[in-house]
């Protein structure tokens, strides 16, 4: 069988392609971006299948849902917080069900390597009452994605594939199988897809009635494996996702291994859990993310006569990602001997804006304009420019979620805060800023919105932006903001004085102003003109 070295993200993508994928959609976000980058790379310019970035995750989800409605196999991927944006169609897609197989791939970022929060997408699958696969390695990422398509079509439900950062961004060999052909067109039935209350009640009842079948699937799935150790009944481990790898890392030799139930599909395989619990005195639950399995086991009263340990018991940390060491401690093994740089001042090296980044020049001019006004607030947003929080810029007072800068600046202005400034990138503005700016324009809120138009989605690897250049200016103009208060600047050191003056003028204006700072991202320019050694 052919073996390819793939990122976990790419293993899912290739699994989807070889399962007969017809349409895939996404919005960039770490650690999920590489899924769509791979899909676009192998889509042969759209001739093999359609793969495209969308303006945001909700749109991506709906585009994929339309593909599924058509009878074709559809795919949508995003980072965990992207599922918040897509939560509206996500929850209702469980009711419409699917025509062509539909996979929702959500990549969680425990430890917040590149995120504003920690979430566990398994709870969303549980919330919508749809099946979820959680691969532990690259081969499973590929195999489960293929299986998830078959399951989705068999059940007529969307299926989630949950990834976490370490699998998304690790590479390993994957054995692939021959590709399945794509589905023919075969549209969905209107009574299933039109969620009027009379239809929706029927569809929701269907989802509820399927739950026992889903548990049965999990109990029979070869991806959920129970291995009992009849000689040693003291400890049993329930491990899911990467947690399973860390358990195995610490018990490489089979004879010393406690009983282990590997869980890779949800809803939980209840019969397998009961068998493990019956066989052991103490159950350790090792799962990446929130304690979903552990909570289900504990319930309110626990299991009489059994100890349940894990994140809720404090044996494993509730926050951050699991590590081989944290799992080692939880199973009661002594730490490995290791070297140490203790006593040496290991200064942190946080990420920072590139030298010469246009955002730095914008922040410098904005700060100059706001000098002497300590009450001024700069609401920022999601992107490289959030790094303006750090010295020497010290130019960011908030970062919450995609688009929040606009609504928060508006809300703070209405509360009486002045100057109230929002700072948002061009792609983030397209993603979630437009509607909030329409709201601010209708109110002529006393605020300044700075749109940093660097022409790309920089932080995640320079994916294309939908709302840049002329189109961005047309959109802003079309919202009904007076032309004289839509200003365009070029953030370069030589224009510093002029730019600071523009900021001062618009901050003094008693209504809404938008200042668009236009200069190409350095990374984007480098990509266009690639040469040199390091990459």
């Amino acid at each position: 069988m052919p073996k390819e070295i793939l990122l976990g993200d790419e293993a899912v993508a290739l699994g989807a392609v070889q399962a007969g994928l017809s349409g895939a959609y996404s919005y960039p976000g770490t650690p999920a971006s590489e899924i769509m980058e791979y899909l676009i790379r192998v889509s042969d310019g759209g001739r093999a299948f359609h793969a495209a970035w969308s303006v945001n995750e909700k749109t991506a989800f709906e585009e994929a849902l339309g593909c599924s409605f058509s009878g074709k196999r559809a795919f949508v991927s995003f980072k965990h917080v992207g599922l918040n944006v897509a939560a509206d169609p996500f929850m209702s897609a469980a009711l419409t069900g699917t025509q062509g197989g539909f996979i929702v791939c959500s990549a969680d970022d425990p430890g917040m390597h590149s995120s504003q929060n920690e979430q566990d997408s398994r709870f969303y699958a549980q919330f919508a009452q749809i099946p979820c696969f959680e691969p532990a390695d690259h081969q499973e990422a590929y195999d489960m994605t293929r299986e998830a398509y078959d399951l989705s079509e068999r059940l007529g439900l969307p299926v989630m594939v949950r990834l976490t950062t370490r699998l998304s961004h690790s590479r390993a060999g994957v054995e692939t199988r021959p590709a399945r052909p794509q589905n023919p067109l075969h549209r969905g039935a209107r009574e299933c897809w039109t969620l009027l209350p009379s239809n929706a009640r029927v569809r929701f009842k269907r989802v509820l009635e399927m739950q026992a079948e889903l548990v049965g699937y999990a109990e029979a799935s070869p991806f959920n494996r129970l291995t009992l150790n009849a000689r040693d009944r003291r400890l049993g481990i329930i491990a899911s996702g990467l947690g399973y790898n860390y358990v195995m890392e610490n018990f490489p030799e089979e004879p010393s291994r406690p009983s282990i139930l590997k869980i890779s599909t949800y809803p939980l395989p209840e019969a397998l859990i009961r068998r493990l619990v019956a066989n052991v005195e103490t159950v350790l639950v090792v799962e990446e993310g929130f304690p979903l399995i552990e909570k289900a086991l504990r319930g309110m009263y626990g299991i009489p006569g059994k100890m349940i340990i894990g994140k809720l018991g404090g044996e494993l940390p509730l926050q951050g990602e699991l590590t081989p060491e944290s799992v080692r401690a939880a199973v009661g093994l002594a730490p490995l001997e290791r070297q140490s740089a203790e006593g040496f001042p290991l200064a942190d090296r946080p990420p920072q804006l590139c030298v010469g980044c246009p955002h730095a020049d914008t922040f410098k001019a904005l700060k100059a304009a706001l000098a002497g006004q300590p009450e001024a607030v700069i609401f920022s947003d999601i992107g490289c420019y959030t790094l303006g929080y750090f010295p020497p810029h010290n130019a960011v007072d908030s970062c919450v979620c995609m688009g929040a800068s606009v609504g928060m600046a508006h809300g703070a202005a209405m509360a009486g805060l002045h100057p109230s400034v929002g700072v948002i990138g061009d792609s983030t503005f397209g993603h979630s800023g437009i509607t909030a700016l329409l709201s601010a324009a209708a109110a002529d809120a006393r605020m300044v919105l700075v749109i940093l138009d660097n022409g790309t989605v920089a932080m995640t690897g320079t994916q294309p932006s939908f709302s840049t250049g002329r189109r961005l200016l047309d959109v802003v103009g079309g919202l009904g903001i007076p032309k004289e208060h839509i200003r365009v600047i070029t953030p370069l050191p030589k224009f510093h004085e002029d730019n600071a003056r523009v900021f001062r003028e618009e901050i003094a204006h008693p209504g809404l102003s938008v200042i668009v700072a236009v200069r190409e991202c350095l990374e984007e320019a480098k990509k266009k003109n690639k040469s040199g050694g390091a990459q």
Partner: protein
Amino acid sequence: MSFLRKQDIILAGVGGQGILSMAFVIDSAALQDGLHVKQAEVHGMAQRGGAVTSHLRLSRERIWSDQIPRGEADLILSVEPLEALRYLDFLKPGGRVVTSSTPFVNIPDYPDQAGLVARIKALPGSVIVDSEALAKQAGSSRTQNTVMLGAAAKFLLPGEARLKDFVRVLFERRGEKILEANLRAFEAGKQAAA
């Protein structure tokens, strides 16, 4: 070193120094040698000038964890001296550090450089190479990562010839000049560590 059954390597540096290129060369060479490979990477925010690592695990047997456990690493290979020390608690007793001596100073509290080099020199078996000077001699200051690959070559599980093959694969597409500079850089690193 082919008698080894497994090797765990921490690659370290600063975002933009070409850590992932080094990982590509080593894991491609290991695959050619029939080894199992897992390579954990850092993407996203940290790549903007922050501390960057890659955990590279090579083995004749199945590899479980994508992350190297603390105390398991055989080798820390770093393009930057402070970053070499940052991950010292991953190194097993008897493990080795191969690092550049060229500091990448983009933070205000960068430690005293002489003290830093002295701390690394005190580690038994450590190899310190002036990657900046060697890269410049090789024809491009951007080949420091390849200099360090050369410096570590004799300690790596995949053979040197294989490593060089994949330096070629990696840089061929960037044109003759860049390829030649990288091949010279590899040799220079190897000589410096000899």
